[in-house]
């Protein structure tokens, strides 16, 4: 190998550019995570020359009974969310994949749209329905039965769990359908030929085979739920009911006094550790799955059971799911947006309906925010896809020493809860970088953090697509005389184009609905759209919050259409799990 090593240094511009981009992206991930770890051991304000080191924050956090209460809350929140999401996703996935349920593409499309509707908008709708004081259902029931106390309270841990469960049902649904679809129907047919009745076959074969996939999906959904911010923030922050992510947020922005940055960093590290544990167990379970030979990557055409007379109830069930989980809260937004204050429907209320809430949002603010959001929606997906392409190319094609590390670092962000990323970026920008690169307060800080947060998704897409391009296609271009940039431009990029476009729009949509990252990082001048809604929610201006959320949803529609077209072109109309 001594001989070969000598030629490696040959100058290849494409290689150097790609390596530089991949290294820069990986460095950002590394620096952010290293910063939060470092800060958790510091004593005093970061940037102070007399900064000391301590493990005191960890002692403090673990000896604080409130930490344990938040952890207990989070466990209950996870349990309720998983129960709700799987109780709904399992039957719907089974109906769509294994029966003659009508309108399957519609179900898939609606599930994808549901994945994109901002969680804070839906949570706000539930607040209007089931808040103990202003919730319309509560008001109506109390008036009807003359009750003193509100019968329902959505601002509780189980209440948040139900709402979060409803909003994570689409992800669970997609994961379960993929598992059901990739299961060889011959396995069930063999059970039938061995004399098992259909119900016995489902119990003894289908569910047993599906078990690793279900477990993996459960851990995946749990990890997302653990990191979730929108729903617990909208429903719980005002009355101090915390899950771990909202607790980290509240520690960073206390209602009184100055934040204790070392303590916030410590909480973030603990959250990161828990998330990493989930990620490791997810991978472990996923690695088990092939042993069951369930996931073959091949799409089978399983026998579809006829629903017969059950078709009506099945259809009603799925329709009810979409109505209750998405339509109802959004309708509530519309109702609240039209009224000066929330009230139960009546002739009087209808007469009070107006567009005042919409008009009261200052136009110049709205325009500035739309401008910021547009920058995010263009810059974030573009930079993410450039970095992803470079990383995939380095990992799968150039394979320099350390390629495995690049792959690992690019995968890391999927593990990291967004709130941890934003806390890390905030502390880093405020106390370390500000003297050299004044990023804080600019839109570019948001851009960088958004890109890092989406890096794992982007590289997963480009990895899969690049792996499907036969190496000989590139080698044939080399033999035809194309140098490395030529091969990239003429062969690799055009062949990846559908995937890149699809992922680009998906990331643009996720950037649009993102709340967790800007809630920590955005200040007056770099606010994106989600923060407008959030700031109205914070000041309890629910009518204006609803109006802003509706404008936001309306502006999303054209991008959604683009997404649908791109997905159709990339052959990805059946969506993958994407975060």
């Amino acid at each position, binding site marked *: *190998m*001594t*001989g*070969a090593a*000598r*030629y490696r240094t*040959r100058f290849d511009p494409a290689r150097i550019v790609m390596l530089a981009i991949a290294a820069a992206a990986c460095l950002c991930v590394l620096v952010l995570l290293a910063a939060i770890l470092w800060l958790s051991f510091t004593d005093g304000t970061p940037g102070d020359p007399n900064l000391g080191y301590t493990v005191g924050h960890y002692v403090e956090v673990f000896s604080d009974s409130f930490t344990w209460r938040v952890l207990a809350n989070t466990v209950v929140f996870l349990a309720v969310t998983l129960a709700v999401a799987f109780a709904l996703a399992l039957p719907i996935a089974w109906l769509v994949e294994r029966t003659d349920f009508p309108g399957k593409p519609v179900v898939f499309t609606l599930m994808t749209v549901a994945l994109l509707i901002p969680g804070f908008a839906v949570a706000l709708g539930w607040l209007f329905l089931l808040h103990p004081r202003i919730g319309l259902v509560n008001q109506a029931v109390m008036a009807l039965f003359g009750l003193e106390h509100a019968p329902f309270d959505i601002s509780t841990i189980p209440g948040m769990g139900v709402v979060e469960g409803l909003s994570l049902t689409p992800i669970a649904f997609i994961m379960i359908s993929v598992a059901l679809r990739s299961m060889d129907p011959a396995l069930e047919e063999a059970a039938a030929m061995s004399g098992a009745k259909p119900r016995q076959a489902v119990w003894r074969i289908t569910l047993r085979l599906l078990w690793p996939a279900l477990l993996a999906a459960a851990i995946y959904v749990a990890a997302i739920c653990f990191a979730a911010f929108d729903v617990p923030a909208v429903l719980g922050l005002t009355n101090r009911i915390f899950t771990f992510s909202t607790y980290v947020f509240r520690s960073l922005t206390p209602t009184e006094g100055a934040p204790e940055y070392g303590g916030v960093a410590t909480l973030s590290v603990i959250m990161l550790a828990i998330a990493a544990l989930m990620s490791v167990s997810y991978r472990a379970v996923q690695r088990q799955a092939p042993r069951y030979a369930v996931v073959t990557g091949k799409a089978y055409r399983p026998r579809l059971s006829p629903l017969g007379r059950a078709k009506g109830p099945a259809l009603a069930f799925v329709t009810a799911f979409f109505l209750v989980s998405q339509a109802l809260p959004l309708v509530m937004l519309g109702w609240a947006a039209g009224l000066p204050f929330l009230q139960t429907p009546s002739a009087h209320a209808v007469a009070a309906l107006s567009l005042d809430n919409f008009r009261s949002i200052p136009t110049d603010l709205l325009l500035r925010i739309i401008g910021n959001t547009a920058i995010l929606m263009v810059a974030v997906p573009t930079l993410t896809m450039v970095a992803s392409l470079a990383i995939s190319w380095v990992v799968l094609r150039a394979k320099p020493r350390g390629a495995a590390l690049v792959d690992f670092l690019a995968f890391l962000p999927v593990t990291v809860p967004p709130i941890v990323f934003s806390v890390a970026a905030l502390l880093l920008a405020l106390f370390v970088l500000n003297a050299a690169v004044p990023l804080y307060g600019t839109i570019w800080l948001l851009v960088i953090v958004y890109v890092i947060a989406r890096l794992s998704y982007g590289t997963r897409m480009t990895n899969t697509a690049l792996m499907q391009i*036969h190496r*000989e*296609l590139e*080698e*044939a*271009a*080399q*033999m*035809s*005389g*194309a*140098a490395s940039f*030529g091969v990239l431009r*003429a*062969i690799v990029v*055009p*062949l990846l184009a559908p995937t890149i476009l699809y992922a680009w729009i998906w990331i643009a949509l996720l950037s649009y609905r993102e709340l967790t990252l800007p809630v920590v990082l955005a200040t007056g001048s770099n606010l994106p759209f989600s923060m407008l809604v959030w700031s109205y929610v914070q000041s309890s201006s629910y009518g204006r919050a609803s109006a802003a959320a509706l404008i936001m949803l309306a502006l999303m529609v054209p991008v959604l259409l683009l997404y649908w077209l791109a997905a159709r072109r990339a052959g990805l109309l059946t969506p993958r799990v994407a975060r």
Partner: protein
Amino acid sequence: MIRIRDLALTYPEANAPAVRGVSLDIAEGAFYTLLGPSGCGKTTTLRCVAGLERPDAGEIIIGDETVFSAADGIFVPPHARNIGMVFQSYAIWPHMTVFDNVAFPLRYHRPRPSRSEARDRVMAALALVRLDKLAGRPAPNLSGGQQQRLALARALVAEPRVLLLDEPLSNLDAKLREDMRLELRDLVRRLRVTTLFVTHEQIEALTMSDVIAVMKDGAIVQEGAPAEVYGQPAESFVADFIGRTNLLSGQVMTPAVSTDGGLGSVATPVGLLHCRLDASRRVGDVVTLAVRPEHIALSLGAADATDPNVVAGEVATVAYLGNLIECTVAIGSHALRVQLHPSAPVAPGARVRLALPIEYCLAMRQ
């Protein structure tokens, strides 16, 4: 035209070298074939010539240009070597038309041809492989055979110094493969382009090549014209890999005297056999004796013990293959494979005599 000296390459993740000390010379215009089982290093050697792999040691010279030399630190990247190559998967770019696929190499050709000249050359290359009528078609809408011919047109359009073929026929079905074998051979012979061909199919190597080099474990074990490699295999591996053959291990009893036409005798499990033998072999040397099934004559009845090279046995299995019958004859604990005319009256259990002609019994190293 191609000169390779002491080529060696070990892949980073492997523990055994993929190629160890390969040297060969390919004359201008020759059709040279690397033949061997998978993992023998033939494709690695070809990819080193292409520049798609960097050898650890050795030298590769194409024409009068050294494209690789470990000693002098020379490595010409693949895109600067002016070589045409047909890949095993054909590597037809699916996002281009048939025409664009073939036109691609001309983009990088120096001096760059004018638009109309490029067009003419692409159409000429397509006409050569009878695809000129399909020039506007998207490349994925071609059959396997058409894709194979398209890959050939693309490899030839820039008039490369050398054509490399990496198992180009292995993805075709049997009948088409037979047709393409001849078509490919005729085409490159007509164009007189120096060709390096890699295959694991002995029939392709025998029918198409000027020279065959048989490879095993990263090294060339025998090189020669097809008839030479088939008729005088240097060792049992070659005899067995090219065509089916009966191999009997034995010990030299009578060494050959070179004036005696190289004939000697070897004691084998089926008895003492006279055979062609290298004069350097001494009494007691262990050798392998090879005799091809088609050269064994079978007759019914018991053997006369005095006839030389005749052994008695019993027919064990009979397989009817249409154009011939292949049967195995058990001689003690050994079995010999024999090919017969389809009308031969043999049945399992029959007592037969096998005559092994001396001139077709070859003793070789194991």
